[in-house]
C-alpha cells in the first residue's frame, strides 16, 4: 500500500517537477510568478493530441500503449508550445517589460493570459475528456506490491533523462550559463554582451517544451481535459517555491515532495482532499522557510 503510494508519488512528482522547472526558470529570469504556465501544459498535451488524431498514436512499441508517432508528437508539441510561449511573450509580457512594469503587473497579466489560453483550448478541442490511445494496458509488478503501467515507467524514465539533459545544458553550455547569469544579475549579464531578449526567448522555449512534455505525460497517465493544467497549477507553483530559487534540482525535489505527499496523504485523509495537500505544504514551508527548502536566504 505504502509502496504503491510512493511509486505513484514519484510519477506525479516527475510530472510536477517538469512543470516546476519551467516556473522556476521563468521566475528567475523573467522575474515574475507565471500563473499562466499551467496552460502551457494543457496546450502541449492538446497539440500532441491533434497530431495523434491525424497520425494515430502509432503501433504500440512493446508493452507501451503508443508508438513512434506519439514520441514524434511529443517533440512537435514541445517545439510548438515553446513557440506559443514566445508568441504570448511578444504580445503581452515583452511589452510590459519594455515599459519596466513591476513584477506584480506581470502576474496580473499572467492571470489574463491564463484565462485566454485555457478557454481557447475549451473552444478548440471541446470540454470532453480525451485520450491518446484506447489501448488497454496491464500493470506489471515492478517490486513486490508495486504495480505500474508500462507507460508510467516510460514517463518516469524520460523525465529523468530530461532533467539530466537540462542540467547538463544549464551547467556547461554557453546558453545555459547566460541563463544562470541573467537569473543572478541582468545588468551584469548585459555588460558581458548577453542579448537579454535572446535569453528570454530561450527561457520560454525551454519552459514551454518542458510544460508540453509534462502535459503529455499527464494526459498519457490520466486523461486530457481543458482544465488539466489549471488543476496542477497550485501543485506546480508549490513545487517551485519548495525548491527555492537558483536550483534545477530544487524544483525536481519540490515536485517529488509534493507528488509524494499528495499520494501518501491518501493513506490518512480522504482522497477528496488530496488537492489541498500542496497548499498545506506551501503554508508550512512559507511560514518556516520563506526562501524555500533549498534556497539560500535572500538579502534584498
Amino acid at each position, binding site marked *: 500500500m505504502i509502496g504503491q503510494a510512493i511509486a505513484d508519488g514519484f510519477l506525479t512528482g516527475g510530472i510536477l517537477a517538469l512543470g516546476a522547472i519551467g516556473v522556476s526558470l521563468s521566475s528567475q529570469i523573467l522575474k515574475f510568478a507565471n500563473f499562466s504556465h499551467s496552460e502551457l501544459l494543457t496546450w502541449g498535451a492538446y497539440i500532441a493530441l491533434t497530431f495523434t488524431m491525424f497520425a494515430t498514436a502509432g503501433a504500440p512499441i512493446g508493452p507501451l500503449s503508443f508508438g513512434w508517432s506519439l514520441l514524434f508528437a511529443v517533440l512537435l508539441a514541445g517545439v510548438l508550445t515553446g513557440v506559443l510561449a514566445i508568441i504570448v511573450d511578444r504580445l503581452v509580457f515583452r511589452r510590459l517589460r519594455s515599459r519596466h512594469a513591476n513584477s506584480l503587473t506581470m502576474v496580473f497579466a499572467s492571470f489574463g493570459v491564463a484565462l485566454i489560453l485555457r478557454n481557447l483550448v*475549451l473552444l478548440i478541442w471541446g470540454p470532453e475528456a480525451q485520450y491518446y490511445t484506447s489501448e488497454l494496458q496491464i500493470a506489471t509488478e515492478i517490486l513486490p506490491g508495486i504495480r505500474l503501467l508500462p507507460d508510467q515507467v516510460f514517463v518516469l524514465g524520460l523525465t529523468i533523462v530530461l532533467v539530466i539533459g537540462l542540467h547538463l545544458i544549464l551547467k556547461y553550455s554557453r546558453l545555459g550559463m547566460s541563463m544562470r547569469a541573467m537569473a543572478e544579475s541582468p545588468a551584469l549579464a548585459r555588460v558581458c554582451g548577453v542579448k537579454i531578449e535572446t535569453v528570454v526567448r530561450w527561457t520560454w522555449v525551454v519552459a514551454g517544451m518542458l510544460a508540453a512534455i509534462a502535459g503529455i505525460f499527464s494526459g498519457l497517465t490520466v486523461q486530457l481535459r481543458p482544465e488539466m493544467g489549471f488543476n496542477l497549477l497550485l501543485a506546480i507553483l508549490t513545487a517551485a517555491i519548495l525548491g527555492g530559487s537558483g536550483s534545477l534540482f530544487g524544483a525536481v525535489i519540490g515536485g517529488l515532495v509534493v507528488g509524494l505527499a499528495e499520494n501518501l496523504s491518501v493513506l490518512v485523509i480522504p482522497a477528496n482532499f488530496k488537492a489541498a495537500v500542496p497548499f498545506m505544504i506551501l503554508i508550512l514551508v512559507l511560514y518556516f522557510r520563506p526562501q524555500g527548502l533549498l534556497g539560500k536566504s535572500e538579502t534584498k
Partner: protein
Amino acid sequence: MGIVSYLIFFAIVVSILSIITLGLNLQWGSTGVFNAGVVGFYAVGGYTYAILTAPGRPELLVNLELPWILGVVGALIASAIAALLVGLATMKLRGDYLAIATFGIAVTIQLIALNWEGLTGGSLGMTSVPRPLSGFFETPFTYNVFYLCLSAGFCLLTYWALERIVRSPWGRVLRAIREDEGAAIALGKDAATLRLQAFVLGSTVMGLAGALYVGFIGFVSPFDFVPIITFQIWTMLIVGGSGNNKGAVLGTLVVWGLWSASGTLISKILPAAFQTQGGAVQTILIGLVLVLTLLFKPGGLIGEEPTTSRHAG
C-alpha cells in the same frame, strides 16, 4: 417589464460584486496586499450564511435556523476569522508568494465546500436558504426591488466606510506601507500588523458579499464559488482603477456588463449544443479586457486619486 426586471437583477449582482471589489481595493489598492484567493472569503461568507440560516436537515451537522440578519453577522465573523488565520500565516510574505499562498487558500476552501458534506451539503449544496424578509413581498418583482435596495444599501455603506477609512490617518499609513514599507517601519509603524488589519477587513467585506449573494439566490453550491471569480474581480479592479473606490465600482459595472452582454448575445446566437464554447468566449473576453487594460491603460479607467501630499506632486 422584462427589461426592467432584468436591469434590477443586473444591478443587484453589480452591487454585490462591487462590495467584493471594494474589499479587494482596500487590500491591494490601498495596502498592496496581493490576495489571489478572493473567492475563498466570498465563499466563506456565503456558506456561513447558508449554514446558519438554512432549514434543518438530519444529515447536516449544523441546524440552527437562525434569522437572516444573524446569518449575515455570522458570515462577517466567519470570514474575518478565516482571514485572520490565513493572514497570521502569510502576512509576512511578499508579492508573488502571497499571491500563490492565497490562491491555495481559495482552492482549499472550495475543496472543503465540495467535500465536507455534513457541513456544506457537498456538491449538491444547500437549497431553500431563507431570503431576507421574503415573506413581506408578494411578487418576485417587488422582492427584487427590495433586494436591490438592500444590496445597494450595503454597497453604499461599504463604499462610504472605506472612503472614510482611506482618508483617515490609518488609511494614510496603509498607503505609506504600500509605497515604501521600509520607511513606514522606520516611522515606527508595525507594518505586518497593519497589513493584517487591512487584509482581515477587506476579506470581511468579501464575506458580506457572499452572504448577500446566497441570500439573494436562496441556495448555495460549490459551483457558485469557482476560481475564475477571483480573476474576474481582479479584472474589475484593474479595469476600473486600482487604488480608487469609485474605480472599483465602475470597473465592476463595466466588466460585469460586458460579461452579461456577451453571455446574452452568445446564448442568442449559438445553438444550445455549443453553450460551453460560448462560456469559453465570455471568459476569453474577460482575459482580453484584463490584458489590454494592463497594456494600454495601466492606471485603469479612473486612476488613483491623490489622497496624500506625496501623491499630489
